[in-house]
């Protein structure tokens, strides 16, 4: 059986599994629908959280990103894992003890205010929505690359699958499918990583192989891999792989701000936070954060190793080699336009150097050049680089680079889809619960019956899927840009308010609302100015990716100052704060 056959087998099998699991875990009440009945054991909640968190970008793009960045890739690695320490120590146990259904629930109750609830619900929807559009696109991209269907068909298939299991099983269905999806994606990630580690260094553990010497039979055998990468980079004119603070415009403060904004943003993402509502006890909430990070760390510590192996391999097999001798994986990934070569000096040899070889993504003319290379319609740049490499290829081609058989390629496709679908489902549930629980039930129709609420929840998942699918098919030009938004806004809106809500009794309604509004406005305006209006990074040279840190500080300061001038919270609210600090009695979610 060929690659395509195996891909259909794995994708088909995993999809059937997800639907089966969703059917087995279908729910009939709102508690099951919003928080999985609060009965998820911590280890499984850890797996579900890991799948929920690791998106198509983590699975497909992260290793490639690190591969091209070298050391600065660490900001993302630390940023996207360090947030779990904040979650475990500062948020998860207390929010679980509070025990309602959504993040706006906490904000609304703790700050005794429908306005605060509305602001929080609007933020939750915006943050989750910007994120989910990217996931639907990711599903389409995986489909088109592996199954040779058109991206739009892929998005529609993905929409149908997510809708079926999210609407049927709500949070419970999503949780158990995410557990399966975690297993699929981690196996799919680790197998090629181990194979490449074996091939390059002879050591089966990528995390160790990464710091070892290159195995016999390869160029530079016997030398340390990272040293070799540095030497290669220097020879070709790139920044050295382990060199620090080398990228343009990197000041230390900005680096710290970016890392911190990613950490706080991770801890403030509603779809991650609500996962900790689904466990039975406070203790389970703490420990499941540990499991979640352990499961995430498996992939996140493998990714930088894959990045280094892939870079070594890519340069050695392509650079200064005749185009006609290009490896098989090059041929496979040229068709979808993930690699392209433009023979600037007409010598038939691939030269890989810094800089973009041409402007934009490859746009093949359909004609071939004299070495059989597809010709490009793009505007050629003046630098010496002839090779275009899409960063996603570092993972997508990893089974072929590692010399694995066709079925592993199918597994990687299923893994990429698992990563995209699991994140999409978690986000869709946040959008749906914000509308059906926080808006509809808590504000519009307080007398809604259980049945009505469940129906509205399901309908809202449907609506959200359709919208997400629409933006997946017609991605707004700014999709890549909005990721900074999602993290920046999560950092500058939720995190400070929830933290103050738990650790102080005196933060008032007015303080919280002013703090959130100030944080969001500052962060939002700064990102819009710098990303879309061409204004320079006017605040201490901090880039839009790191500005959430400043927005968070503004939120804190405004909330604390306003609170000192306003009437202190009512006694019953102060009692809520006292009670969430004590684990005992978490029991069931109070169903209002």
């Amino acid at each position, binding site marked *: 059986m060929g690659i395509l056959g195996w891909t259909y087998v794995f994708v088909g099998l995993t999809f059937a599994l997800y639907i089966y699991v969703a059917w087995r875990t279908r729910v009939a009440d709102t508690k099951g629908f919003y928080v999985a009945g609060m009965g998820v054991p911590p280890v499984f909640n850890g797996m579900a959280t890991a799948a929920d968190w690791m998106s198509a970008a983590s699975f497909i793009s992260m290793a490639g990103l*690190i591969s091209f960045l070298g050391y600065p890739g*660490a900001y993302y690695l630390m940023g996207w894992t360090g947030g779990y320490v904040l979650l475990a120590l500062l948020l998860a146990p207390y929010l679980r003890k509070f025990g309602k259904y959504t993040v706006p629930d906490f904000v609304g109750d703790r700050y005794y205010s429908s306005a605060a609830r509305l602001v929080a619900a609007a933020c939750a929807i915006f943050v989750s929505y910007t994120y989910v559009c990217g996931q639907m696109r990711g599903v389409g991209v995986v489909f088109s690359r592996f199954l040779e269907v058109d991206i739009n068909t892929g998005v529609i298939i993905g929409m149908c699958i997510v809708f079926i299991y999210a609407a049927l099983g709500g949070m419970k269905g999503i949780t158990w499918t995410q557990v399966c999806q975690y297993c699929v994606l981690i196996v799919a990630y680790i197998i090629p990583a181990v194979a490449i580690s074996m091939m390059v260094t002879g050591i089966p553990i990528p*995390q160790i192989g990464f710091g*070892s010497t290159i195995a016999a039979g390869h160029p530079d055998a016997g030398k340390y891999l990272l040293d070799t990468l540095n030497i290669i980079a220097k020879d070709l004119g790139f920044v050295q792989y*382990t060199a620090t603070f080398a990228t343009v415009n990197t000041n230390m403060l900005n680096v710290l701000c970016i890392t911190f904004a990613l950490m706080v943003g991770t801890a403030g993402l509603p779809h991650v936070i609500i996962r900790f509502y689904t466990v039975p006890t406070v203790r389970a909430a703490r420990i499941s954060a540990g499991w979640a990070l352990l499961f995430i*760390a498996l992939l996140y*510590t493998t990714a930088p190793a894959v990045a280094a192996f892939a870079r070594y391999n890519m340069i050695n097999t392509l650079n200064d080699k005749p185009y006609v001798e290009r490896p098989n994986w090059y041929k496979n990934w040229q068709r979808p336009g993930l690699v392209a070569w433009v023979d600037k000096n007409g010598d038939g040899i691939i030269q890989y150097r810094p800089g973009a070889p041409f402007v934009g993504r490859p746009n093949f003319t359909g004609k071939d050049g004299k070495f059989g290379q597809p010709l490009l319609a793009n505007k050629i740049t003046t630098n010496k680089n002839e090779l275009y490499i899409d960063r996603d290829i570092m993972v997508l081609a990893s089974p072929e680079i590692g010399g694995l058989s066709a079925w592993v390629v199918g597994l990687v496709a299923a893994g990429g889809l698992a990563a995209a679908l699991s994140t999409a489902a978690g986000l869709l549930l946040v959008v749906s619960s914000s509308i059906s629980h926080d808006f509809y039930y808590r504000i519009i129709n307080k007398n809604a019956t259980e049945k009505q609420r469940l129906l509205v929840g399901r309908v809202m998942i449907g609506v959200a899927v359709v919208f997400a699918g629409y933006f997946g098919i017609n991605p707004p030009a700014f999709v890549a840009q909005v990721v900074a938004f999602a993290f920046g806004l999560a950092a500058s809106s939720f995190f400070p308010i929830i933290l103050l809500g738990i650790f102080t009794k005196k933060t008032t309604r007015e303080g919280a609302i002013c703090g959130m509004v100030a944080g969001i406005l500052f962060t939002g305006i700064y990102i819009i100015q710098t990303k879309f209006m061409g204004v320079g990074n006017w605040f201490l040279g901090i880039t839009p990716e790191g500005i959430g840190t400043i927005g968070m500080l503004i939120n804190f300061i405004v909330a604390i100052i306003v609170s000192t001038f306003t009437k202190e919270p009512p006694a019953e609210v102060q009692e809520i704060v006292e009670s969430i600090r004590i684990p005992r009695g978490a029991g069931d979610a109070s169903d209002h």
Partner: protein
Amino acid sequence: MSKDLKEYWRKNIRIMTWLLAIWAFVSYGLGIILVNPLNAIHIGGFPLGFWFAQQGSIYVFVVLIFVYCALMRKLDREYDVDE
């Protein structure tokens, strides 16, 4: 809040503060601020600062959460607020 519970909360804050201090030191300290001096030291093929930034900090994060769980479990029992 009773005197006992105030003490419980104070001890909780202390545990948290220490663990977050380690968290910040490893990631921002060893992984970013001190990365250049640390890179002078090599462990196998890894410059040490680079290793902390791309590997070590993540391992430390995982350990920190499990240590937190264990310490809090002990504290919960000591003050009789466990579940």
